[in-house]
């Protein structure tokens, strides 16, 4: 198999954190990010079903497993 560019993940990590300036958005400024339409997979059941259909029909898989953003609430 082709050489795995595992260093790619580290590069992406560093670039993103630097680009974001670490703390660009204050906790009280998260009004827009708290909105459901800013979530990557807002409706769990629908996202599950679509991923499931793709798994059934396609030979590739994985990658859509993250979470983050959101209102920053507890």
């Amino acid at each position: 198999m082709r050489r795995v560019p595992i260093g790619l993940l580290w590069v992406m990590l560093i670039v993103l954190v630097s680009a974001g300036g670490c703390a660009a958005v204050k906790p009280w400024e998260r009004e827009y990010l708290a909105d459901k339409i800013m979530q990557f997979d807002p409706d769990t059941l629908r996202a599950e079903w679509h991923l499931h259909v793709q798994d059934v029909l396609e030979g590739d898989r994985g990658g859509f497993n993250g979470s983050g953003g959101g209102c920053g609430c507890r």
Partner: protein
Amino acid sequence: MNRTARVRVAGCIALLAGVCGAVEAVEPPQDETLVGYNLYSGGGLTVQGPALIVKKELLNRMSVTAGARVDLVSSASVDVVTQASPYKERRTEYNLGGTVLYDEVLTGVDYIQSRESDYTSDTVSVRMTHDLFDRNTTVNLHVSHSWDKVGKNNDPSFGWKDFNRTIYAGGLTQSLTQRWLVQVNYEATADSGFINNPYRSVYTIGGGTAPEHYPDARTGQAWVLRTGYGFAPDSTDELSPGQRSSIQFDYRYYQDTFDIQSHAARVLFQHYVGTNWLFGTSYRYHRQSAASFYGDRLPATQLYKARDKELSQYSDHWIGASLQYKPIGFTWAGLSNFYVELSYDFLMYDYDNFTDPRTGELYSLRAHVLHTSLGFNY
């Protein structure tokens, strides 16, 4: 009997482990119930059934999530009708998970069980999510392992063969501005054991058939980049929400030891209409190259042989739309925050090197995916 649906369905539970009972990194789940109905119909295969998730917040910043889904399969797909006979079956899946929040770290454990007459799967997954830099950065880590058993209906001599899957996944989400979010994910999947379908045969050169035979190990990697941006209007008279529209873009690159390489890109646009309605539309394009041992017709002497169209070279399009209605302030019997959603996707798959044995032509698939759900807090 065609087992495309079942092998892939049960064997990919581990992938769903991250989504079943998924929580926002920055917020423990609210007391919520989601109840839905799913439908897939296309290429002679129909899968439909109900799904349910119940989430409850407990003391000490812990939560528990339980879910179930039933898939009723009715298959007369191209593999089924050319190599066996149409069948009906039921697959049931249960999941149970819990999370605990300590300071900025959310840790979760999930167990998922799937059962059908010729396939069983048990998956355990562990997730950890850590918020950094005032919650601007979220790091996700996820490890899961599945213990599957592959059987064959009407053939007791086949017994039960083991199939194992391990997934390692990591990702990072970053708020770049108040309206712009970016996420990168990496996921490695390692399969071992009986990977192919016990029912499928390949066509050999010179006429005749031979059973499929895959290597007993497969490792794949996916790299995903996602970004979302929100548009706000100038006038914000409504009580909520603050955002009126958003656009999201995903891209995934995948490669594995079967020599499959794929690219997938999706665009999603969502827009509020008034305070109660949310409209969404999406388009996805996906392109995949074939496994090195895949062939429409193969030499009988070739060691590894596959004729599963999922491992062929093809491209596909998904076009979808969704509508959600959320009556603000409506409560009933102590339940609140209701919403109802309906979504429809039209799928077009065109295969470059998989032919329909009935016609001798390259195969094309057109399918419909429907989902509806109701959610509420209790």
